[in-house]
C-alpha cells in the first residue's frame, strides 16, 4: 500500500465509518506492528495482546485524528510504543512486588541491598529465558543478535528496529520517540556501534 492509498483509506474510513477501509489499514500494518512489539516485549502472547490493543486504539481514535500518511505511520507506532512502555512499567512493578513478597515471606534478607540483588537476579533469569530466541518462532534463528539487541537501552533498541527492520525514515522515527531528526541519527549511530561490539565479544 503506497502513501496515496493509505491516505484514501484513512479519509474514507473517517467519512463513512466503513470497516472495510479500516481492514485495509489493519492488514497493511498488522505484521509490522506485531514484529515491532514482539522485538520489544520478547513474549509472543503478550505481543499479540498488545498488538490487538494497538489496533483497537487506532479503530477507536481514527475518526477524530487529523493525519496524513506520514504522520499516520508515526501515530500507529507511537501507540504501540506507549503500550510497550506501559507494559514494562507494570512488569517492573509486578517484579518489585514479587521480590518484596519473597523478602517478607522468607525473612532471609537482611537489608534493602539484598532486596535489590533479588530484583536483579529475577530480571536476569527472565532475560536469559527470553533471550534464547525460541519465543519468536522458527523463522528467526539468531539468538545472539536478539541478546545483543536486548542489551541496548530501550531507546537505542527501538531506533534500530524502526530504522533497519521497519525501514522508517528519521523524521518519522523522531516523531515516534519524541526526538529531533538529528538526535535520532545520533542514537542510531551509538546503537549500531554498541550492538556490533556486543556481537563481536
Amino acid at each position: 500500500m503506497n502513501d496515496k492509498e493509505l491516505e484514501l483509506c484513512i479519509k474514507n474510513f473517517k467519512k463513512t465509518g466503513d470497516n472495510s477501509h479500516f481492514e485495509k489499514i489493519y492488514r497493511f500494518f498488522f505484521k509490522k506492528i506485531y514484529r515491532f512489539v514482539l522485538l520489544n516485549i520478547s513474549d509472543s502472547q503478550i505481543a499479540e495482546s498488545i498488538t490487538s490493543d494497538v489496533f483497537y486504539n487506532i479503530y477507536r481514535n481514527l475518526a477524530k485524528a487529523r493525519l496524513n500518511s506520514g504522520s499516520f505511520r508515526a501515530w500507529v507506532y507511537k501507540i504501540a510504543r506507549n503500550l510497550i512502555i506501559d507494559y514494562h512499567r507494570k512488569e517492573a512493578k509486578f517484579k518489585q512486588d514479587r521480590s518484596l513478597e519473597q523478602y517478607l515471606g522468607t525473612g532471609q534478607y537482611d537489608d534493602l541491598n539484598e532486596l535489590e540483588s533479588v530484583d536483579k537476579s529475577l530480571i536476569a533469569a527472565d532475560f536469559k529465558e527470553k533471550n534464547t530466541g525460541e519465543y519468536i518462532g522458527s523463522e528467526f534463528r539468531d539468538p545472539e543478535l536478539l541478546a545483543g539487541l536486548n542489551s541496548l537501552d530501550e531507546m537505542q533498541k527501538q531506533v534500530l528496529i524502526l530504522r533497519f527492520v521497519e525501514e522508517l525514515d528519521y523524521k518519522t522515527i523522531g516523531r515516534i520517540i519524541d526526538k529531533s531528526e538529528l538526535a535520532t541519527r545520533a542514537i542510531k549511530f551509538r546503537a549500531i556501534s554498541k550492538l556490533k561490539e556486543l556481537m563481536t565479544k
Partner: protein
Amino acid sequence: MNEKVLKKFLSLIDKGMDIDSCLSKFPGEYQNLKEYAETIKGLDNLKDISADKDFEETSLKDIYFRARTEDIEGVKKIPQKNAILAGLRPAYLKPLIAFFAVLVLIGFSFTGTLYASGDSLPGDILYPVKRTSENIQVAFTPYKYEKNLYLNILDTRLGEADMILSRADFKDTDAAESLIGDIDDTYRICRERKYLGADEGEKLQNEITAVKDRLRNRYGIQKHGTDSIPNDASGNEQNTDNNSKNDTQDTGQNEPQPGGNNKTENKNQPDDGQQNQTGNQNQYAR
C-alpha cells in the same frame, strides 16, 4: 576505526545502497566495516518475523466485538455532533475563522471612525470620512427619501458653520471658504428639486446668507459670482434663480426687522454658535 568512515558507510546504507556495494567502497576498512555490515544484515533478517495468520483474523474480529460492546459506534457520530463544523474541512476552517475575525475587526474600526467623524469640522482629519459617508448615503438612498437627506445635510453644513464661528481658535480660511461653497451647492440642489416650501425657503435663505456673511467677514473671503443665493441680506448678489416669486419674497424678508428678532442679526452674535446649530437642526430636518 575512523568514525567518519563509519558514518559515511551508514549514510550510504541510509540512501538505500546495497550493503555489499557499500563495503566495496571502503577497501581499506573492509574488515572493520564487515562486522557492522553483518550486524545490519542480522537486523534486516528480523523482517522475516510474522504473526500467526489465525491470530490476525481473530484479532480483527476481537476489535470489532470490543467496539460493539463498548459502543464505539459513537465514534462515527462525533462529526455529527458539530454538524455545522462537520461540513467544513478542518484545513479550511482556520483561515475562514481568521478571515471573518479580520472582517469583524475592520467593521468595528470603520464604524468607530465613522462615529468619531460625526463631530468633525472642515479642515479636520476625519472630515473627509464624514463627507464620504454622506456621499454614500446619497448614492444609496431611494428617491422619495432624498429630500430629508439633503435637508439634513444642509442642516449639518450650517451647524458646522455655527461651530466654526463659535470657535475663536478656528483659523483655517480655506476650510471656511470651502464650507461656504458646500452650503451653496447643497442649498442649490434643495431649491432646484423644490424640497423647500415658500416659508421655509425664505427662512433658510436668510439664515444661509447671514452665516455666509459672518464667515466672509471673519475670514476676509471675497464673494464669487457663482454664489447660488439669489439675494443676500444686503441685496448685493446676483440673482441666479428664475423664480420671481422667491425673488420678491427675498427682497422683502431681507429687510432688517425691528426689535432685534431678525435671524441674521441673531446669527451675528459670535458666541451663540451652539444655540444656533441646535436651532438649525431642529428647524429644517424632516
